[in-house]
């Protein structure tokens, strides 16, 4: 084939390319089939319900992470923000004698405030996202220690766990619906709104987007605020499921969320994002963790596997690009 042909070939006959989510879908199916065939406990209704609940927090965080990565940025502070927002929730709940609405709003506001701080420093201050969020990662985790002398807070109103952990809608756990709803809203924002298009444009080519008249700074700040807000929502879920706020809550969430996003097929350099992929990525990680536990393995093995899955996911992404 001559050089000329190679340049014009794609325009003449568009090549059929598998959807981005194909790879993660296969991996998910394979892991599910593996565990289901090896362990009869895996596909019991109880375990599947547990899996749905466990996936909610990561689904929520990974949705926010997808938006941030779509802009070409990264937010490694989400895990610490979950810890801080959870503490704030418990703090407000105990101080207001169990006003749950106020407590949950405080958690969401804390998350959004952390996101705003990140966004302002990154978009207005023109500082590298990895450095800014690394700094808030350290600062937020340290700020957790300012509550209750660094101890956890466990005397929470039982209604919190009742609402989030033990309620069903259409016979499915409410947490499942929260996770699904977040993913779908993220998809709607990304695909159906002007903001979503601007977000993807920003990740694709920053200068071109600015020159096209898009308020890039505002869009970028908004992405980090949403990511922080969702970290606050995840904090509500985590605290409700543990029935306590723990200083270590959310540890390693950033790693898991980034892995889920990249595993799903969102490009780490920005401009292209898929929330369907993110959802499948979240499920894959949780199936791995849950399956590992069925084998009586500790979480170390699951974390090791997550690391391997991340490498594999990036590798697959690279293979798709060069194909």
């Amino acid at each position: 084939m001559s050089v000329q042909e190679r340049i014009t070939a794609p325009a003449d006959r568009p090549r059929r390319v598998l959807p981005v989510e194909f790879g993660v879908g296969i991996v998910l199916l394979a892991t599910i089939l593996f565990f289901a065939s090896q362990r009869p406990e895996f596909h019991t209704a109880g375990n599947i319900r547990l899996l749905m609940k466990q996936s909610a927090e990561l689904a929520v965080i990974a949705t926010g992470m997808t938006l941030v990565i779509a802009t070409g940025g990264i937010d490694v502070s989400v895990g610490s923000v979950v810890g801080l927002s959870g503490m704030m929730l418990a703090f407000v709940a105990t101080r207001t004698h169990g006003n749950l609405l106020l407590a949950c709003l405080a958690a969401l506001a804390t998350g959004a405030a952390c996101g705003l701080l990140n966004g302002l420093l990154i978009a207005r201050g023109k500082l590298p996202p990895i450095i800014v969020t690394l700094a808030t990662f350290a600062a937020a985790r340290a700020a957790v220690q300012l509550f209750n002398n660094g101890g956890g807070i466990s005397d929470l109103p039982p209604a919190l766990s009742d609402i989030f952990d033990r309620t069903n809608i259409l016979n499915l756990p409410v947490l499942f619906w929260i996770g699904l709803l977040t993913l779908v809203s993220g998809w709607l924002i990304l695909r159906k709104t002007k903001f979503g298009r601007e977000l993807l444009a920003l990740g694709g080519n920053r200068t071109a987007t600015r020159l096209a008249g898009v308020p890039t700074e505002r869009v970028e700040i908004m992405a980090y605020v949403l990511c922080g807000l969702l970290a606050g929502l995840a904090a509500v879920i985590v605290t409700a499921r543990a029935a306590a706020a723990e200083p270590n809550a959310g540890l390693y969430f950033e790693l898991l969320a980034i892995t889920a996003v990249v595993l799903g097929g969102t490009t780490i350099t920005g401009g292209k994002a898929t929330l369907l992929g993110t959802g499948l990525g979240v499920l894959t990680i949780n199936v791995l963790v849950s399956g590992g536990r069925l084998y009586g393995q500790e979480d170390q093995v699951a974390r090791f596997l997550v690391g391997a899955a991340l490498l594999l996911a990036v590798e697959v992404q690279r293979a798709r690009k060069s194909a």
Partner: protein
Amino acid sequence: MTRRFKPPRELPTLALLVIACAVLAVKVPAFRTSYNLTTLGKDAAIIGIMACGEGIVILSGGLDLSIASILALSSCVAAGGMAAGWPWPVAALVGLLAAGTAGMVNGAFITYRRLPPILTTLATLLLFRYGTSIATHAHNYGPFPDAFNLLARDWNPLLILLGVGLVLTLLTVLTPFGRWLTAMGGNEQAALLSGVPTDRVKRVAYLLSGLCAGLAGLIAMAYNNNTQSNVATGYELSVIAACVVGGVAITGGEGTLPGAVLGALLIELVQDALILTGRPPEQHGLFTGGVVLAAAVLERWRKVRQNRTARVQA
């Protein structure tokens, strides 16, 4: 046109370090005790040696998040060797070898497979740390032979830091490798087109980073006289902070290794001051985070000014 004097990038860090030292020495008597100073020296050596390796990687335009995990890997391999009855020099060497291999794994993924450095080293952060944990069953090793522990006695860690810093600084200043590093960090495409073997340089950079982390692991285990797979969790943050504080631009291409070492000294000095004034160690992150942000803002300001003068001159 007269050339204006341009202050070196490391000057603010050095000035702050000297002032902080002077204030602490006068105000806090506990600071001057030899126990405090040698402990500080040990901490600064562990972070500083890793900062030299990380500095090389960042200069080349990359990032290595896996160094703390490599530290754990090398110390556990060396400790496992000693527990198995190997003579300590052999065990230590094998530990270093493991660290070098880990660094080469990073470099291989980043160059042969063209994976983004952040993601690669994020993945190997998990793989090395939890691989070590699985392989050792989170076993706590120690004590070690006295001859080995000499590595971390009194001022020895600081001397090692000086040696490593000197050798690596000379490497970056005097050899083509050093010039290639900064050229790549400035503009990798341009460097590649002007004949720099960019992939080879990257592989060496990640190898050196791994070796530095391995050496730091040996010092840490010698000082504590025990080690475990969860040792030094989260140190990668302090090391990156040290580099940024020492004036190494996180985007690559600008900065020096002595700067990174000064940054490590400053960060550890601040931690020491916080401990001496009775702040719980869990809260130190608030301060480290602040210092990193301040350094990033300073870097940004420097770039804005640079652009402005460039435009005026043009």
